């Protein structure tokens, strides 16, 4: 199982580097085993350098850069061993428009192998989905599901709810 872990680590590392470069349009990211001699116990260090910037501790990255780096890593792990579905609750909250577009494209791409259920307030993210379930509380405190908008071939054309931004 030591070799299983090393192999998984190697594959995730390779995908992480590739996804990071794709999401950041350049730069470099990799995973480092803190203690290479003790692979089954070693912690895992994350190195990430957005394009043009100098390498620093990931703590100095911005809120949006941290989210994009975490997304690259999570999707890298998914790439190595996909699970049938993935639920994401408002993970696009810290992202600006351009990064939300990249995130949405990554989700679309990955949705060929996995089903995605995404809670979001963002119009771009919503526009890239196949089905939209609205949740409302017309009667205070009571949740109801409403208006599924559903376009199998092509994008959502209905106007988003006033509650969305």
């Amino acid at each position: 199982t030591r070799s299983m872990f090393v192999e998984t680590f190697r594959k995730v590392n390779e995908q992480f580097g590739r996804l990071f470069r794709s999401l950041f349009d350049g730069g470099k990211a990799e995973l480092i085993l803190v203690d290479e001699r003790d692979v089954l116990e070693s912690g895992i260090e994350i190195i990430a350098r957005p394009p043009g910037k100098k390498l620093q501790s990931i703590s100095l990255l911005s809120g949006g850069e941290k989210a994009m780096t975490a997304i690259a890593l999570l999707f890298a792990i998914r790439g190595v061993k996909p699970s049938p579905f993935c639920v994401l609750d408002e993970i696009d909250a810290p992202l600006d428009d351009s990064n939300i577009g990249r995130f949405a494209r990554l989700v679309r791409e990955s949705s060929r192998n996995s089903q995605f259920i995404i809670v979001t307030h963002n119009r771009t993210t919503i526009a890239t989905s196949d089905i939209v379930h609205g949740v409302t509380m017309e009667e205070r405190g009571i949740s109801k599901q409403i208006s599924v908008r559903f376009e199998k071939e092509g994008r959502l054309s209905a106007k988003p709810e006033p509650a969305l931004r």
Partner: protein
Amino acid sequence: MHLKKLELFGFKSFLDRTGFNFEPGVTAIVGPNGCGKTNVVDAIKWVLGEQSALALRGSHMGDVIFNGTDGRKPLGMAEVSLVLDNEDGSVPLDYSEVMITRRIFRSGESEYFINKTPCRLKDINELFMDTGIGTRSYSLIEQGKVDLILSSRPEDRRFLFEEAA
């Protein structure tokens, strides 16, 4: 294998029986603050066997039962059912659809069902063992938690890789 339908009945803010249909691809869940979107995510975690009330934002499991509003009385039971498409046979049951159901009463007792037949939580875990459903923490990212993987300590990050190995 993908999710087909989620049904909530008396679960948190979902007083009445409410269904969400899912398709392969990307499903967006939208709505204003506090309307119940994260409660839907909680329902998915819960029906798959979540044992920690804290992970569902409560202090005891009974917190998931609809507890009333100004105009409505609390309920005595909550129930969530999840229907999975099993056309690819990844769940070792001779059905093209598998429904798992969990019920809880004010006493705190949970009941579990597979295709409406009572079973133990253990049976559900075994059923999904090879599919990764319910067991891979990278399948569900909670609100506000996306960069937890970056801020966690190197030793604490390992488990994601171990799950993928």
